[in-house]
């Protein structure tokens, strides 16, 4: 059966609201069955098992679990208080606090949806109470959380690394500079809004208050230091850092902040397993799809076709970005990675693109996809918490998506931005 027919089956099932992983698996099943016959489906069972036991992906459940523990341990409130003392004196201070806290939190959980769910419920009501427009509040919360997925640790980067056999640690390092550029631009944009609409100043800068909130949040701030310091210093692998993040989060929740009880812990474990399984089922099914794609040489055919349109790497990169942006509008990030990356990787290789740079390009496209309806998982979560209309929020959010586009363009066409730190750390 032709790959185009399978694509049609997949899209038809998606429209019917079949779980994406099953739609993908069913299309692969039909394709594999038509190629090799019914008995060959024994390979489906084996590849479903092998696909789910990828060692680098062990970091995912552990980071999700650590994030869930920190989320229920009082970390969010302490981070907000500290960042508020740090930047709350600027006009539009709460908007700055929103961006700043998002970046800190992202260094623990690695998931934008977790980021919005944890911080949005604290910050958005506070911003609305202080007179910030609801649409602006939801837009900045949503976009800053998505920007945060290019700052390590990042679940999309772990997925990409495992799918393409690229060093996850190098991907983490490569995300730092684009993340900081994006954060600076978001701060500037939020300040522009604050001046134009006369948003309030939160508190005067007070060194003693800053020190007090810092001491209170110090344990929480220690987690990213351990994770990033350990990974960048070559002391831990990404998986080991995830394990340590769990240990430290447990220690802080049980013995330092003492806000974690057994019920919360068990709920955090269950949430961690569910979130992991949702992503991992996609990965496992994509391993089976990979068997079909290898036989039919779809990635190679697509490479030849794209190179026949243009051999200019700049144009190919633009086409890849358009493809990812289109897919990101209709698929969740994890699904977009497991579906598209194995197919387009030969194209990236053919134009000599560094796999680390391509990983950051893919991650940024995923970040934009989280903000562009109709799927827009992060935007939807932010809108639901803010009780705002998605389309009204999108009218403001388009400015913040613009920031993500600028960073994407930089990362795509200026490799130095992503690779300079990687080269200085790892030669």
């Amino acid at each position, binding site marked *: 059966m032709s790959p185009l027919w399978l694509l049609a089956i997949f899209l038809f*099932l*998606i*429209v*019917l*609201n*079949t*779980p*994406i*992983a*099953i739609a993908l*698996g*069913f299309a692969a*099943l039909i394709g594999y069955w038509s190629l090799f016959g019914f008995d060959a*489906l*024994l390979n*489906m*069972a*084996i590849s*479903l*098992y092998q696909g*789910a*036991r*990828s*060692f680098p992906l*062990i970091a995912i*459940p*552990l980071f999700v*679990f650590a994030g869930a523990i920190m989320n229920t341990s009082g970390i969010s409130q302490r981070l907000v208080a500290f960042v508020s003392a740090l930047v709350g004196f600027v006009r539009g201070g709460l908007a700055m606090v929103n961006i700043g806290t998002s970046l800190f939190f992202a260094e623990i959980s690695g998931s934008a949806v977790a980021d919005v*769910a944890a911080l949005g*419920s604290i910050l958005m009501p506070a911003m609305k109470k202080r007179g910030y427009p609801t649409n602006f509040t939801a837009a900045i919360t949503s976009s800053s959380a998505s920007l945060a997925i290019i700052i390590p640790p990042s679940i999309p980067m772990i997925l990409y690394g495992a799918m393409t056999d690229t060093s996850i640690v190098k991907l983490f390092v490569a995300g730092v500079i684009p993340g900081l550029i994006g954060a600076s631009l978001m701060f500037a944009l939020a300040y522009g809004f604050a001046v134009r609409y006369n948003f309030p100043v939160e508190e005067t800068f007070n060194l003693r208050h800053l020190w007090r909130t810092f001491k209170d949040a110090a344990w929480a701030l220690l987690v990213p230091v351990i994770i990033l310091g350990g990974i960048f210093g070559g002391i831990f692998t990404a*998986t*080991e850092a*995830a*394990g*340590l993040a*769990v*240990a430290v989060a447990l220690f802080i929740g049980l013995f330092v902040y003492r806000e974690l009880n057994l019920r919360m812990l*068990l709920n955090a*474990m*269950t949430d961690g*397993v*569910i*979130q*992991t*399984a*949702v992503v*991992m*089922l996609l*990965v*496992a099914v994509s391993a089976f799809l990979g068997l079909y794609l290898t036989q039919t040489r779809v990635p190679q055919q697509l490479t030849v076709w794209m190179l026949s349109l243009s051999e200019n790497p700049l144009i190919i990169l633009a086409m890849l970005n358009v493809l990812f942006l289109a897919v990101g509008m*209709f698929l*969740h990030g*994890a699904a977009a990675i497991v579906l598209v990356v194995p197919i387009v990787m030969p194209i990236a290789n053919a134009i000599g693109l560094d796999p680390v740079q391509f990983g950051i390009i893919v991650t940024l496209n995923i970040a934009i996809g989280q903000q562009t309806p*109709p*799927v827009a998982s992060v935007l*939807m*979560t932010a*809108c*639901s*918490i803010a009780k705002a209309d998605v389309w009204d929020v999108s009218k403001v959010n388009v400015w913040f998506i613009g920031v993500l586009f600028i960073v994407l363009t930089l990362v795509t066409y200026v490799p130095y931005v992503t690779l300079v730190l990687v080269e200085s750390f790892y030669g």
Partner: protein
Amino acid sequence: MSFLSAARGVLERVLITISIVLMTILAVIVISAVIVRSAGSSFTWYDEVASVVLAWITYYGAALAALRRAHLGFPNIVGLMPTPIRLLALAISEGVVIFFFALAAWFGYQAIGLLSGDTLISLPWVKVEFVLSVIPIGAVLFILAELTTIPDRVREARFGAPPAEAIIVAEEDKS
């Protein structure tokens, strides 16, 4: 309480218990491995066993996610359709899910027979058929999770599902 909702309750408790045990095992294995490595030693079985636990988390967790309706989907288009089309879409979708996992369970069972006698490389006393059992068992649990939630799905197809964001807001309000 109907038979289906009672069965769903039992299934959920079993899957939650398995999930908690597996997550605990994974965390303990990885944290112990870090400690042992920092002491200059290593577990020879670490990579292989941790990977197996991840596979188990995937399939037992996937069944729990099916029970909680947490799998990623795209409800926007079907939600706009009239009720008869929504019911038809649900029937096709459920049929596909059950067919897929029924085949996974059958061929998973076949694979166990084929690989019986093989063992893990690092732990020769652990049979591959034991670790591979997660495919047929996980597939059957997934089907059971689908079947026990069918009444909810039919009700939503008839009367329209609350959008995901409304559920989140309701949960926020509760907390």
